[in-house]
């Protein structure tokens, strides 16, 4: 195997942060494919441009997605990456693993692919980076055998993801891991067989800290919250104060709604005004805890910038109880998909469709009542509509 020179990339082996270049170089020693990736990347660094292109659609039997086809545009120079496809493997809820499971994944990818991965992709999948068209099916067969399945890609449901939730976090108001798993299992068909106007993402966070960035990145966000009174232990607040926390400046004054107060001995929360932003709890987890009547706020429409610019997802159900088998959220999801599938244009995310047709049509179609929690403010323009049954003939 010819040695390749990567003087530019070598610069990225310096410095305190772990170097991907070192890893690539190690792997390149045994994997020709990775040697060519290195060469290609060095070329990109020299030329300041990428060298990949789209090509024919590739995949595995019975699936419409889960594989991203990729080809270099300079196969003459780097023949080993003439084909360099990605497989997306659906991660376990909350990205918990045992070393056994990880080794199994590594061994399979060593066998069928480049040995390069992303742990994880931005959507949450285990990204296996670089294999040939030919290897896709046998690779998949063995992954499946071992208990792993493909994640989403294309115009379908994308792999749902969730924060560590009740497994490792005292703030979790819902069982994020279970909801994530149950929804993923319930919608295997939607996940694997593209059929919609565009992609649809679900993310689940246990509380308003939103550690999977659902509001920014999911068409449907499920975010834990509570409806009753926050639990307050003033003695413990005092411990934080005694340990040096300036409760007034760091907690009380940062409350968005002036809902809490501290007089040196009692920490009071006005639960009617509290918007459950989590800030005071974040600052003093030993002293404050969410209430007992827990459930989730459901939001819709989050997405990145294409086409109509990025949207953050917005409230459509202020509170929904979240108990297995999660029928209420499933019914809502199905109603949403039905409406979107029927009315959405190609490459129109559900949020964009709502923008185009209006919340009133969306709410009516999916059977939700309008509530003021859906908006920061009511409309400022007078351009509102009446249904025929609301006016006289």
């Amino acid at each position, binding site marked *: 195997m010819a040695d390749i020179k990567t003087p530019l*990339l070598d610069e*990225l082996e310096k*410095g305190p*942060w*772990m*170097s991907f*270049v070192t*890893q690539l170089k*190690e792997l390149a020693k045994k994997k020709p494919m990775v040697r060519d990736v290195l060469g290609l*990347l060095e070329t*990109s660094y020299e030329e*300041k*441009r*990428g060298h*990949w*292109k789209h090509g024919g659609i590739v995949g595995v*039997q019975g699936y419409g997605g889960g594989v991203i086809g*990729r080809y270099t545009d300079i196969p003459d120079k780097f023949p080993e990456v003439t084909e360099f496809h990605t497989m997306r493997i659906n991660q376990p*809820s*909350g*990205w*918990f*693993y*045992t*070393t*056994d499971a990880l*080794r199994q*994944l590594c061994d399979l990818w060593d066998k069928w692919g480049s040995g*390069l*991965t*992303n*742990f*994880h992709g*931005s959507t949450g999948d285990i990204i296996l980076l670089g294999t040939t068209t030919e290897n896709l099916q046998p690779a998949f067969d*063995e992954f*499946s*055998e071992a208990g*792993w*399945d493909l994640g989403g890609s294309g115009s379908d449901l994308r792999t749902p993801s969730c924060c560590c939730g009740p*497994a*490792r*976090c005292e703030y*979790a108001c819902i*069982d994020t891991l279970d909801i994530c798993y149950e929804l*993923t*299992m319930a919608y295997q*068909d939607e996940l694997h067989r593209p059929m919609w106007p565009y992609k649809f993402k679900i993310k689940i966070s246990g509380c308003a*800290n939103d*550690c999977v960035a659902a*509001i*920014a990145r999911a068409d449907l966000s499920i975010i834990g919250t509570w409806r009753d009174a926050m639990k307050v232990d003033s003695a413990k607040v005092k411990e934080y104060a005694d340990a040096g926390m300036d409760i007034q*400046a*760091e907690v009380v004054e*940062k409350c968005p709604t002036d809902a809490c107060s501290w007089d040196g001995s009692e920490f009071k929360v006005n639960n009617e005004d509290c918007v459950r*932003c*989590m800030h005071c709890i974040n600052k003093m987890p030993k002293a404050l805890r969410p209430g007992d009547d827990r459930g989730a706020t459901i939001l819709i429409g989050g997405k990145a910038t294409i*086409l109509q*610019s*990025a949207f953050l997802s917005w409230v459509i159900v202020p509170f929904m109880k979240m108990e297995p088998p999660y029928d209420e959220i499933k019914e809502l999801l199905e109603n949403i998909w039905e409406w979107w599938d029927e009315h959405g244009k*190609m490459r129109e995310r559900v949020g964009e469709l709502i923008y185009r047709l209006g919340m009133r049509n969306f709410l009516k179609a999916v059977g939700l009542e309008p509530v003021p929690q859906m908006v920061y403010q009511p409309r400022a323009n007078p351009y509102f509509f009446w249904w025929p049954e609301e006016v006289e003939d």
Partner: protein
Amino acid sequence: MAKTDIGPPHYSKFLPPIIKENYGKWAYHEIVKPGVLKHVSESGAELYSVRVGSCRLASVDFIRQVCEIADKYSDGYLRWTSRHNIEFLLSDASKVDPLIAELKEKGFNVGGTGNALTNIIHTQGWVHCHSAATDASGIVKAVMDELYEHFENMDLPAKLKISLACCLNMCGAVHCSDIAILGIHRKPPKIDDENVNKMCEIPTVIASCPTAAIKPNPKAKSVTVNEERCMYCGNCFTMCPAMPIADPKNDGVALLIGGKVSNARTAPMFSRLAVPYLPNNPPRWPEVTGTIKKIVDLWIANARKGERVGEWINRIGWEKFFEMAEIPFTDKHIDDFIFSVPTFRTTTNFKW
């Protein structure tokens, strides 16, 4: 044929016993020191999570190395975070320090907790994506090196979340990050009429353009681009390889700042344009790392305790930010897309 639709393995298979026993019963947590979270259960049980940075572009050998360590210290249990860090899950407090010692010895990065810089969310870049206007892993490495002290210490005014996306598709959460690094093109795609005709579905290409800049060119059985409306998103190129947009001379990086995702205190916010263009200067992108460092230092010096970048700027006003950061304000900073009008300053309330 292999079984389809089996879904992911059930998560319960991967939870350590201490988590199974205390699932949903965690009472509170403490950050013992940078990189070490201690979660205490109502039962009194204590779980230690040791957080370690990772370059997300990981080889199987690296993962195997991580597994070795996990077997030694955390009974083979570990997880990844939503920002690509690794967490070793220990039920035995006495193993925490030895673990950290070994990690450091092997060159791992321990930290990323509390009011620190954590790992940079990023995307494919020149390593895998056809659409990339810049590399991902390379800039990320350069920026993490530059700001490394803040990963190891928890001395920032608040959490610092940096993200990178290599093109306007913005895979990841760049649109809501404290600092977002965004690969951008700056010139309209070139049109290869012959191949458009052959390779592309013209209606799809036309529909792909957010600014409606593409019109049919019936004569050439191709399309034309209204160059005045094109803002170089590259969407047409994704739909039609015969409209290449990559351009080594003009591609580069924009910085958007002040976004956040959590609902803590303030509602989630978009990142907003700070620097419209910095050149692609591999391998270490000094203009990018330098500008980010400057912004971070300014934030550290001026923010109040607990203020995220965007919260700080909202308090002082963007006009003050541009002045303090000595970043030129240009016509590019002023929105001219769909929701532009609500961003215009419809008040005389501003600072000089």
